[in-house]
């Protein structure tokens, strides 16, 4: 079993839909929870960064962390065609190196 599980999709939604993406993990030592967006042939770009449990909102994006269930989510409201990309969750423990452990990524297509 991988440390971080993420359904690779693909996920296809109409423009304006609410998108829900999620990851589960097994290691309770993870303290940092991130969502990255990656366009084709580009490097990952950080969308949301959360320390420990709770919710965080930034514009159309909301990240949720439930450490008791070892479950993290990213919600995208009013999705746009420009949101079409691969979304990766990445987790890190509290150590100094902060090396990221990644989900496989979910491919999202938002159709106009």
């Amino acid at each position, binding site marked *: 079993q991988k440390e971080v599980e993420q359904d690779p999709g693909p996920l296809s939604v109409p423009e304006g839909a609410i998108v829900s993406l999620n990851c589960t993990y097994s290691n309770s030592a993870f303290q*940092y929870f991130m969502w*990255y967006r990656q366009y084709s*042939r*580009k*490097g*990952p*770009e*950080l969308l949301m*960064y959360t*320390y420990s449990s709770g919710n965080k909102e930034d514009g159309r994006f909301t990240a949720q962390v439930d450490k008791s269930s070892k479950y993290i989510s990213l919600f995208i409201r009013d999705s746009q065609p420009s949101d079409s990309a691969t979304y*990766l969750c*990445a987790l890190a423990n509290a150590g*100094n*190196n*902060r*090396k*990221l*452990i*990644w*989900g*496989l*990524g979910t491919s999202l297509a938002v159709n106009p």
Partner: protein
Amino acid sequence: GAGVSQSPSNKVTEKGKDVELRCDPISGHTALYWYRQSLGQGLEFLIYFQGNSAPDKSGLPSDRFSAERTGGSVSTLTIQRTQQEDSAVYLCASRQGGEQFFGPGTRLTVL
């Protein structure tokens, strides 16, 4: 300001040859990471540099892989005697504080 840059963007090599991949981190970032992204495996940590400390090499898949970071800035990832399973995108990231900023990657194809 400039982000993380990597070169070359694409590299095609023959099995058994050595390759060098370069990463220029964001100026002033003390932490530097190499990751590998391959189909079906996702992103995997390879190595981490922090200042003058000994690097964390725990993710290097074999002794054919090595990396160095000169003067706390530019880093080179070297793969010796390349194999077809080394074909992947190699990503570099730098960090100062919490966020890791990624370069565009080097796409390595081993024929």
